[in-house]
């Protein structure tokens, strides 16, 4: 039996190879090669492309630890990632629940479309639209002053909340989609069974629905947290002077200061930190899921 199983899985692998190959070939070319080049750069004193002499060094990594600025920015970015993730859960999970369990048919399709619309719009357009909404004399300010009897000044532009708003808007669809999928998979009869046993809706949510949709929450959180920690577009455009984060500093190294080796080193430190966080969280999350 065991031998049979082994040969079966081996021949399964052989027949799967043509299917796997394109994806792995692409990953190798598109990710592994550039990434290895970046690892290489991160240990250089200068770019070989610039024609200047270069040498092997750990200095770029040392820079991170020698200046408290980088650590502070990394900490700010991790906090940003956490906050955005939490807001995405707060906003995305109820939406996913309504989509999966309350709405049916055409209205579900319509709402679904609205949720994933941000996905289809260009990121820059999305962020500049927010800039128009959030600035003083912008859409939000004008609209509120038109409705309210007293004069208020709404100028969220170039502030931390503006960065949060922009990032949550960009990333909330991930949370809605991953949670929608797990919530959709929960049999309605489970909810009915719980109610027949006398459980209130809140008790059902706490003891059955959230535990069963945990894989979706975890997947959504991972999909959001990691890119948000390294994000630079939203902080730069919506945050202005307050929008200096770890991601914007890395971007600066590549596009402004042209210090690719430091930028690469900072990126890999971020990657390492994120991997450590996910590894530490894994046992807890696996238990919860």
């Amino acid at each position: 039996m065991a031998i049979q199983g082994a040969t079966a899985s081996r021949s399964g692998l052989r027949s799967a190879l043509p299917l796997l190959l394109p994806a792995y070939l692409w990953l190798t070319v598109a990710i592994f090669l550039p990434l290895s080049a970046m690892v290489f750069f991160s240990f250089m004193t200068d770019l070989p492309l610039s024609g200047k002499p270069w040498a092997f060094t750990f200095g770029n990594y040392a820079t991170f630890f020698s200046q408290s600025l980088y650590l502070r920015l990394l900490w700010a970015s991790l906090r940003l990632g956490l906050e955005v993730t939490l807001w995405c859960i707060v906003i995305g999970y109820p939406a996913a629940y309504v989509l999966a369990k309350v709405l049916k048919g055409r209205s579900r399709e319509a709402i679904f479309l609205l949720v994933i619309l941000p996905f289809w719009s260009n990121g820059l357009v999305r962020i500049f639209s927010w800039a128009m909404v959030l600035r003083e004399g912008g859409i939000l300010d004008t609209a509120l002053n038109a409705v309210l009897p007293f004069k208020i000044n709404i100028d969220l532009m170039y502030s931390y909340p503006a960065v949060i708003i922009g990032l949550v808007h960009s990333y909330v669809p991930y949370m809605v989609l991953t949670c929608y999928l797990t919530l959709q998979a929960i049999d309605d009869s489970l909810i009915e069974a719980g109610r027949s046993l006398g459980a209130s809706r809140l008790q059902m949510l706490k003891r059955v629905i959230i535990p069963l949709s945990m894989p979706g929450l975890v997947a959504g959180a991972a999909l959001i947290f990691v890119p948000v920690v390294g994000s630079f577009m939203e902080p730069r455009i919506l945050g202005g002077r307050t929008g200096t984060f770890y991601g914007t500093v890395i971007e600066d190294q590549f596009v402004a200061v042209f210090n690719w080796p430091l930028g690469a080193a900072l990126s890999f430190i971020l990657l390492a930190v994120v991997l450590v966080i996910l590894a530490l969280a894994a046992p807890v999350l696996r238990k919860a899921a």
Partner: protein
Amino acid sequence: MAGVQVSNVSRSFGAHKALDDVSIDFADGGFYALLGPSGSGKTTLLRQIAGFDFPDSGRIAIGGESVERVPVEKRRIGMVFQNYALFPNMSVADNVAFGLSVRGEAKAVIAAEVKRALELVQLGKLGGRRPHQLSGGQRQRVALARAIVTKPRVLLLDEPLGALDKALRVDMQIELKRIQREIGITTIFVTHDQEEALTMSDRIGILRDGRLVQEGPPEEIYDSPKSEFAATFLGDANILRGDSTGTGIRLPDGTAIAAGAGATLAAGAKASCAVRPERIRIATDAGSAGRANGNMLRGQISKRIFAGNNSTYFVERDGQTLKVIVQNTGIERLAEGQDVVLRWSPESTVLIAAS
């Protein structure tokens, strides 16, 4: 524990009348089957009693108290679902404990009650397992234990044995009946399986197109169905159609069929007679059984199905196929193509108004 009264309940979904003025009285401690084809409204009725859905009109009372607008979580009912609906994120014991724990019972009380409920369904040792580690029959028992541990007033079962294979289903029928007797709870179960309804329940309600067709003990419905539908849906029946003679019918070819049971009908009205296949005796020789006032028809065997302990004969007669089931008590068999005489007593014949 309490009885359930359903009075004039109607429920429509759009233009579709799922329940049409249904009244049925479930006495305290009884075991009831709601039987009907799919789309007959039986599950809709169960969901009204459970409180998942509210009727458009009519009254539902549990233990004399009107509940038709009370949501399910406040009705104190126990429900077993067709797919078991066990919480996959909890152990068997936690599943059973769920109803008590959401009510805020003390931990010690919960532990004792759960233990007792699991022993009642003979799963005392499996409390630590997860639902996915159990067989279908075991899951069914857990679902039952979970439904009764809260001491509900009524136990509702929605096709509880539908997902089990035949042998297991028979075991569970006996088991379910035993447990129901032991705790004496009013039990209402929905099924489309007529055999299940016959063997398990004290009373059967047959539904069709949202209406209650007939209600009563299994023997009564089987022996004197009030409609062609009830006759053919619960058990097998041969239906002969003709004009009423008051005490029977006259077939189109003039043959008189005497009926000893069923409706009283004015002579001349369109009517049917129902005869169960096993009540008919089949023979080759017309002279051998010439008893007075028995019903008799001649026909030709078109098909014979041998099923070991019995044989089913299909007999062609005046464009109609009649079914006869004979216990194979001897070795004599009738062959296909043979001319035969069918005889049965008026007592086995039920007169039914034409539907």
